[in-house]
């Protein structure tokens, strides 16, 4: 989990704790690893959250103002509206799993490394 390679190279003084051994939040906040983590996480979650809202609101507006389009038959008695509705379920599952993978693979190791430096989990 922790990135031992980079961790092994840093000298003792790079531990992000103050004199009393508590985490030094200002130092962590300014640390390149924290800045990288923040950039990475926010660049992932903000566009995705915006996408979720836009996609959902598009669907809602179509349902409210283009009912004829939604009533277009696709196959059998299944119409475009039902398929679009079910696609909201599909996109929800897709976004869930994308985020879970991102968090597990990208964010969690960076967090673990920072926690190590700050003297938590030791």
């Amino acid at each position: 989990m922790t990135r031992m390679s980079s961790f092994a190279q840093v000298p003792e003084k790079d531990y992000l704790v103050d004199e009393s051994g508590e985490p030094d939040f200002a130092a962590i906040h300014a640390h390149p690893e924290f800045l990288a983590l923040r950039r990475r996480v926010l660049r992932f979650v903000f566009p995705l959250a915006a996408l979720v809202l836009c996609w959902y609101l598009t669907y809602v507006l179509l349902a409210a103002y283009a009912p004829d389009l939604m009533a277009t038959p696709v196959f059998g008695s299944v119409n475009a509206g039902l398929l679009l509705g079910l696609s909201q379920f599909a996109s929800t599952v897709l976004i869930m799993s994308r985020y879970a993978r991102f968090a597990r693979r990208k964010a969690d190791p960076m967090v673990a490394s920072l926690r190590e430096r700050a003297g938590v989990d030791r």
Partner: protein
Amino acid sequence: MNGDPILNVAIFLAIVAVTLFVVYRVSSANTSTADYYAAGSAFTGVQNGVALSGDYLSAASFLGVAGAIAVHGYDGFLYSIGFLVAWLIPLLLIAERFRNVGRFTMGDVVSFRMRQRPVRAAAAYSTLVISAFYLIAQMAGAGVLVSLLLDVRSTGGQALVIAGVGVIMIVYVLVGGMKGTTWVQIIKASLLLVCVLMLSVFILGKFGFSLTTLLDRAAAGNGHGAAMHAPGTQYGASPTSRLDFVSLALALVLGAGALPHVLMRFYTVPDAFQARRSVLSALWAMVLFYLATLVIGYGASAIVGSSAIISAPGGENAAVPLLAFEVGGAVLLAIVAAVAFTTILAVVAGLTLTASASFAHDVYANVLRGGRPKPGAELRVARITAVVIGCLSILGGILALGQNVASLVALAFAIAASANLPTILYTLFWRRFSTTGSLFSMYGGLGSCLLLIAFSPVVSGASNSIFTNVDFHLFPLSNPGLVSIPLSFLLGYLGTVLGRDRPDPRLADQLEVRSLTGIGARPRP
């Protein structure tokens, strides 16, 4: 309905006995505020996720959404999509950060780097108002359910049942605290999921696992005919009703992640990783649940028929019980009824716990006692508050008998999205956000929402209003979200930019670091 009231009551009492036993067994360590509010943060993500879906899937979802699909077709389905998609917001933006920053209540997070007293007080007021709306809706729902299932038609009889529900719920909360309440939610959510999945598989099987057959038969049984499969049967009547639907959709999608009893669930797990797993598990449960309600709703239209549903006592809410009776006789009806009752019990218990925590932790311990209450006093206040809230909700539920339950729940979502969400997001992601900004946003969102509701068709001027004999409605929409949510975001921005106070940069650093990494978060006790 031709169910057997004695069988209904027997199965319900059996479930209540099991839950009370479980609550009693797990309650041994319910002695500190950390136990009472957050179950010692010792649940796993999956357990908490199931409980989270239990908190969220109220009787309004179980009976209301399936019933709406049975009667209104596609427009009912739209409702369920909002409830589901809404969960991506807490997954992506809120859950993990809440766990890292806070300890017991929403007030912990939004007051973290602000002036404690005013911000905590505002957070507590909005928590109490939202819980009140939600609680009264659930209690009134219990009244509807009982008229439907136990054949209790007299107001006195319904009031007695509501009081009974209230008393059991108070016992859950007092004896079990968060740990007991969580186990009640887990039991209830599991029962609910098994119940809807079995019903939906049965219905699919009955129509040869053919979606087209199910849809055609549903249309044949529905008053709208094939038009039920397109949007507009319920919301498409006029430009106002369309706008009202957009407003409702916005409130649903933004409100779910800001409901105080949902937010409080993130504290019952040890860390952010488990908080994330909680939301992921809850989302899986809800994907299955809402797909099942779609099948059940269409099934009810096909098998029971929409006119029989509308003319039954309880109207739309009767769709699932009627369907259960048609396909499984009195026994299945009794099981469905018992699950619906347990759902109400569990949800009101969660709400009461949240409201009592918010009052005791935010108002009593931090606002009135400056963060230094006498040992044991905070827990005592929390328990007394739970009893008071329980009694008030019994009273409110009795007064609200016969009110439109679903619209009350939708209003709770609108208030949560207006009063809580902007402040939560600004606090977590905007360094400059200040005390003035959070007070503007919380009081502005809460106030504008309540004001718009008071002058909306929900309260007066329509055939299903609370007051039908007077008309003082000025605002055309039943749901205020479309106006109050953007207004609250704007007020939060204006309060921050125009206010004289500047946030403490040290606390801002700490909040950012802590929310992303959990460094400095309180360890498990």
